[in-house]
């Protein structure tokens, strides 16, 4: 009788495993898709993906360009960081702006101060058509929101960019199916299985640099509808947006951002965590989910993320 030989190597640590899986997914995109693009906002999740892409493809160039869909209402610190990082990597960065879609008339705001996050979908679809991208790599995670818990690693979108939860491909083993017909699109999520904690631990381990607004800083804010709302925020073009409304008391407090997006719908949290190690600790002890306290756009209804995804949102 033969006896089975036990393995002499240790299983991978959780970060090594997640890293390896993400590298594998990025290489599957490169191997299966003819014209993919990596969505890069300058936020922490997409910065992790850039690091993973380095590990996946260096010493070669990335087999895809980077693209940011800019709402025009992004924090200056994040936009500057985005440009700096793309330049350091020597990779091509495409920027398409919601404001261009507004000029074309394809995005119409209900009011000038309406949050623009959901309108990114329109600009994204226009960019996909312009460049003929067959796959967009994004930093969405399944732990972010319950409409994401059933999201595929390779998520299929039809010609209108729509996500139909009932028409998704089963995903078995690590045999991902990223095939698409012309006009259709795959959204690939290499860090699907990561939690907010995993992201911060990875940032710590890999010593990744981040935009300064992720760390505790002093900022003028007002309290609006139970959330902390940053006011008088400067944009890259010199404009200053989000003035306080009449009767609101402006407070200067120490805050940081847990998630970064359109200024009008991303709220900071009170924090004195000014380095990554402190943020890891804070993440371990927080009592509020990442989007719970900070994403004003997810709170409209129980199903608002699901709704936006059906309309082509990331």
């Amino acid at each position: 009788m033969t006896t089975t030989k036990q393995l002499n190597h240790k299983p991978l640590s959780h970060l090594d495993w997640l890293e390896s899986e993400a590298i594998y997914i990025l290489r599957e995109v490169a191997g299966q898709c003819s014209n993919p693009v990596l969505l890069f906002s300058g936020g922490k999740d997409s910065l992790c993906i850039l690091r993973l892409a380095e590990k996946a493809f260096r010493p070669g160039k990335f087999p895809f360009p980077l693209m940011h869909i800019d709402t025009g209402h992004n924090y200056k610190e994040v936009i500057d960081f985005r440009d700096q990082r793309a330049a350091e990597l020597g990779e091509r960065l495409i920027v398409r702006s919601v404001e261009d879609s507004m000029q074309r008339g394809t995005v119409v705001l209900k009011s000038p101060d309406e949050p623009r996050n959901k309108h990114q979908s329109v600009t994204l679809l226009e960019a996909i058509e312009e460049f003929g991208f067959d796959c967009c790599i994004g930093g969405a995670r399944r732990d972010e929101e319950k409409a994401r818990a059933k999201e595929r690693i390779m998520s299929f979108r039809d010609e209108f960019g729509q996500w139909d939860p009932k028409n998704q491909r089963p995903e078995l083993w690590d045999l991902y199916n990223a095939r698409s017909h012309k006009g259709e699109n795959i959204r690939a999520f290499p860090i699907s299985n990561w939690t907010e904690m995993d992201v911060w631990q990875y940032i710590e381990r890999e010593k990744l640099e981040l935009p300064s607004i992720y760390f505790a800083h002093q900022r003028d804010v007002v309290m609006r509808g139970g959330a902390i709302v940053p006011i008088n925020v400067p944009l890259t073009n010199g404009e200053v947006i989000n003035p306080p409304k009449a009767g609101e008391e402006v407070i200067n407090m120490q805050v940081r951002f847990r998630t970064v997006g359109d200024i009008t719908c991303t709220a900071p949290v009170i924090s004195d965590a000014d380095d990554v190690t402190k943020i890891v600790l804070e993440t371990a002890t927080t009592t509020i989910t990442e989007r719970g306290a900070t994403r004003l756009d997810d709170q409209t209804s129980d199903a608002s993320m699901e709704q936006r995804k059906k309309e082509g949102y990331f």
Partner: protein
Amino acid sequence: MTKQHNDTNHNDSLLRFMTCGSVDDGKSTLIGRLLFDTKTILADTLTQISNTSKKRGMEAVDLSLLTDGLQAEREQGITIDVAYRYFSTGTRKYIIADAPGHEQYTRNMVTAASTANLAIILIDARRGVLTQTRRHTYLAHLVGIPHLVVAVNKMDLVNYDQAVYDKICADYLAFANEIGLAQSKSAEGNDISFIPMSALNGDMLVDRLDNMPWYTGETMLEKLEAAPAAHSEHEEPFRFPVQFVCRPHASDNHDLHDFRGFMGRIQSGTIAVGDAVTVLPNGYTSKVKAIQLGEDKLQSASTEQSVTLLLEDEIDTSRGDMIVKSAEVIEPVKTIEAFVCWLSETPLSPARTYIVRHTTRESKAKVGTISYKVDVNTLEQQASTDLKMNDIARISFKLAQPLMVDSYAKNRSTGAFIIIDESTNNTVGAGMIV
């Protein structure tokens, strides 16, 4: 190593497991309880589900709502898909695949099982071993989950009576023996274990509580913490499907002019610098010159690591080829025999040509013969000429391109494939090579 931070930082492994059972067995409550007791559920989520519980006229907070998914599903009051949940204990990170257990959802269970290393099979203590228990066990076994934990739930409703628990364990083992599971599992070093619990009260989940002093075995969390995490716990031949070839010659760096890196994830086994390798299907041989992971150069690498291999010789290799050790070469094949679970609403058409994706390789495939279908409830074999959604059958395929396969029982990576419908690009079947 510095240990300046919080305990949750030190997950030194990752375990993927699945839960088999219906809502009636307390599956959602079990998951909700694990998330709740490991403090994964944060205050705002709890507020949200307690509001929903009230809205639906429930008195206590319904932990099963934590796994309640999409609006589309809520409207229909059912779960139609596999959801993934995460928690971590400080020593280990867990990924739970939560699939509905109902008969119509065989395909979802197979999907969830494909990535799981452990399955919790829930039995209602009042009802004992049922048809669905047999179905769940068969499917978990078919998809090769090495560790089964049979959880006899709702012990609180049978007065925590040990006799009830013992009888269910005996019944289950008798059934497992009947389908040859107990023997074959132990031969492969795999296992079945039992636990009495009450997910509702939390008995034997994370805390022992004191209702069942007669049970001295591990709690559910202790079992999860102790289960082997590795995808495979035994030495397997080295299998490295090439995903992507890195040839940065176009860049302006002359040092890289001759760089040719074969990128992929080690599906099984280990490799070290200097090992003699063969590239299949062509059979070229060479030696491993270097192993890279990012900027790091490794002396050796093993299962589940994504690496770049550099070989001593210039060999024409592309995506879909497989690098193996020269001492462990497999013969490429153009016919395969497999158990197939059909996933699509459109039945299999024996007249059509499909695409089989195996590792990083694709081939056109035609159905040879359908030997028989398996009734997942009675496990009876039935003659059949068709295959509909949720059916499982033993089928042979003829392939246009050779594939480098192992049997699924030996290797869950190189023994697995998916079937793609070329007209829709949908994934329509899942195969496990005999």
